[in-house]
């Protein structure tokens, strides 16, 4: 079983700036940073090139995401093949599409994860996601923004 998940955010900057940040070192590290976690990002921005990110709380617990660029269309669109590797050895693979649409001087940035292997994700969830947070989020969570 698989499904697609869409995320969207309006960013108060033009698409050129958003695209440049997302394909640059600072923006990529900001994207993956968590308080107290280390992030290392290396990006070979060409079709077939790899954007590899390793991040985690310590050297003993490192997550690694590898994105292979399939389409690079600045400043409008990126299409990536994504592989997530977790410290417990779990691996997820899916397609990531990012679009950057101009909106009155701002940018509607949309990220779609396609073909998520939901059965594997469910196992991951059961392995250690903080259930209390999840349960309470059910009450307070707002529906995701529909980019359409």
């Amino acid at each position, binding site marked *: 079983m698989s499904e697609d*998940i869409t*995320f*969207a*955010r*309006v*960013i*108060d*900057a*033009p698409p050129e*700036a*958003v695209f440049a*940040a*997302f394909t640059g070192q*600072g*923006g990529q590290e*900001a*994207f*993956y*940073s968590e*308080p*107290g*976690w280390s992030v290392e990002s290396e990006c070979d921005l060409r079709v077939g090139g790899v954007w590899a990110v390793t991040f985690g*709380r310590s050297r003993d*617990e490192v997550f690694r995401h590898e994105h292979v660029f399939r389409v690079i269309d600045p400043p409008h669109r990126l299409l990536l093949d994504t592989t997530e590797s977790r410290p417990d050895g779990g691996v997820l693979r899916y397609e990531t599409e990012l679009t950057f649409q101009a909106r009155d001087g701002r940018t509607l*940035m949309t*990220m779609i*994860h396609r073909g*998520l292997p*939901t059965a594997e*994700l*469910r196992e*991951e*969830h*059961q392995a*250690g*996601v*903080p*259930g*209390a*947070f*999840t*349960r*309470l*989020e*059910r*009450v*307070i*969570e707002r529906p*995701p923004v529909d980019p359409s």
Partner: protein
Amino acid sequence: MHCHATLDRTFFALSDPTRRGILERLGHGPATIGELAEPFGLTINGVKKHVGILEDVDLVVTAKVGRARECRLGPAQLDDATKWIGDYRRTWRRRLDRFGAYVERADAGR
């Protein structure tokens, strides 16, 4: 079932980003008060205060282990596998938000 008073206190407990961070950290396994203090840049007393608020609504439980006090997720957690996708969404939404804020700061500086 939650009574309103408990729910109010639970919402209060979750209203603070540091306490949400502590819950996320404990989602990966138990930690002592000292281990929680360092990554959040808090004093031991600061962590104790946050943990006390979370403990009050059963989101966290603590126990003395040797000379340290160990914290772990409390009985308020329910293993709700049908909501697994919520966590996934939250993680990526947070990434997008952080990235957006980074670009806006950088763009405003130009």
